[in-house]
């Protein structure tokens, strides 16, 4: 077998069952041998950031193309080996680099050639002087992938959202813990709602892209607004025919049911293109990782989790930035001691003046 990358073309596989099986296998294969990565940002008051990456893998394989975050030879790198309780060898690569400001991090993100190179990521830092305190705001943002998707909060309640954004490890612990039945049922409920969310997103994206592609050629019934009104109807058609969707889409049955005989024939190519765009956006090629952040001063606000070391933590999964930007934000404050002293003297001065006035 050649060493080069092989090109596997799906459409030569006529048998859908084999195609399905191979797809599942590919997913399994694609999930193997990627390092577990934790990125730690230590934010300094002047806006500089010390960034540490810890990558763990079952084998000594840390190819740049497999890595979740940008990293190169300019980093200070340390390799080590750890033996787990079960006697397995874990290869650990730790890298550290000082960034003078977030713009340097953003340049790295733009030049990224790693596993998540197609994802638009950037960091932001701001500092606000508030006399008694200075406020620091650091965030890492991943731009949304779908243009016409729905925010997940429209499908999940607060408790379910909390579960959705929880790290996998925490969910697994709960699912296998004392209240396992309750959490498994809860997880199933969330999964079902997420399936609806995925479905609605792909349909909404298809409608949006289809309307753009058909543009002026389409009549008034085919505008994005009018198609959008019938979105639920289309979702139902897709769900009803999920098992036979492939063949029904290919022979135009589903499209005919949705936009009528004449339009389905006229706009078949646009419909296929829109479908491809929609699924490409839904199926993000992304390798998950974790981000930890250490802020200067006292932490006052965050949308992340807090680990046992007191550091902020965000799991990064592709679902989180599917339909809206994923903001990993932390806010902290440091007291301005000199401002406290100046204010104290000023107060003393004014109070003394008032006392003198009263005495005289």
């Amino acid at each position, binding site marked *: 077998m050649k060493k080069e990358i092989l090109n596997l073309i799906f459409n030569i596989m006529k048998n859908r069952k084999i195609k399905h099986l191979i797809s599942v296998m590919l997913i399994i294969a694609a999930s193997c041998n990627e390092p577990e990565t934790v990125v730690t940002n230590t934010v300094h008051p002047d806006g500089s950031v010390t960034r540490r990456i810890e990558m763990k893998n079952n084998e000594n394989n840390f190819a740049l193309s497999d890595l979740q975050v940008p990293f190169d030879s300019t980093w200070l790198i340390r390799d080590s080996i750890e033996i787990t309780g079960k006697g397995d060898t874990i290869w650990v690569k730790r890298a550290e680099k000082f960034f003078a400001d977030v713009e340097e991090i953003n340049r790295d993100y733009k030049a990224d050639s790693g596993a998540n190179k197609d994802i638009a990521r950037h960091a932001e830092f701001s500092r606000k002087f508030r006399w008694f305190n200075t406020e620091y705001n650091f965030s890492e943002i991943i731009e949304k992938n779908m243009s016409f998707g729905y925010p997940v909060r429209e499908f999940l309640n607060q408790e379910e959202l909390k579960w959705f954004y929880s790290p996998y490890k925490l969910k697994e612990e709960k699912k296998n813990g004392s209240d396992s039945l309750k959490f498994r049922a809860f997880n199933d409920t969330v999964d079902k709602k997420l399936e609806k969310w995925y479905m609605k997103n792909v349909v909404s994206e298809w409608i949006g892209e289809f309307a753009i592609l058909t543009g002026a050629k389409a009549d008034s019934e085919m505008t994005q607004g009018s198609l959008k009104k019938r979105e639920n109807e289309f979702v139902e058609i897709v769900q009803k025919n999920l098992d036979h969707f492939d063949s029904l889409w290919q022979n135009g049955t589903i499209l005919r049911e949705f936009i009528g005989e004449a339009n389905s024939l006229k706009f078949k190519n646009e419909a296929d293109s829109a479908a*491809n765009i929609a699924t490409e956006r839904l199926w993000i090629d992304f390798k998950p990782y974790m981000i930890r952040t250490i802020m200067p001063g006292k932490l006052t606000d965050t949308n992340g989790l807090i680990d046992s070391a007191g550091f902020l933590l965000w799991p990064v999964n592709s679902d989180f930035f599917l339909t809206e930007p994923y903001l990993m934000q932390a806010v902290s404050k440091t007291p301005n001691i000199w401002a406290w002293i100046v204010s104290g003297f000023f107060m003393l001065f004014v109070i003394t003046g008032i006392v003198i006035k009263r005495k005289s």
Partner: protein
Amino acid sequence: MATDNNNYKRIIEILRNSRPELIRPEEIEDEVIKRIIRQKRPGETVTALIASLFGWVYVSWVRRSLIGAVTLLVAIFIYQQASILKQVNNLSKKTVIMGNGQLPASSSEFDKKLTLYKISAGFYSDREIQISEKRLEELLISYQDLQGKYKDLVRIIEENPELKKYIENKLNEKRNTKPDL
């Protein structure tokens, strides 16, 4: 001797009676008074300093402005510190993950990809993907493994007539509930 004494007394008397003629006596008086005033008395400097430092207390609008500024500072201080306390209290209620939360994150991604495949497989008729030789080998190994498990499953079903009947019924039910278009 007595004559000398008499002369002396007479001269003194003459001198006493012949006073110097002052040109501007008022000016001399003023100068003397000024010099007396200029003479420093103990504690006078501090008093003067305080008087100049706190002269503003006798100017109404300055006094009111400074009192306003102090009130504002105190209000800002109380507000900021109370706000920080509240935010810190809210943060303490946040979920704390044991350990550093590191996880085989791919597992969750795998679950998601399976779900995604299920709902979007139909759109993928012309999709092309690239895989490396290593992953292709893993794919084939996984495929063989799955084949083995499938054979085991079929064998178990074949050996158990009740299970076989149950599965057939379930499959028929599924076919009946989801008719083709």
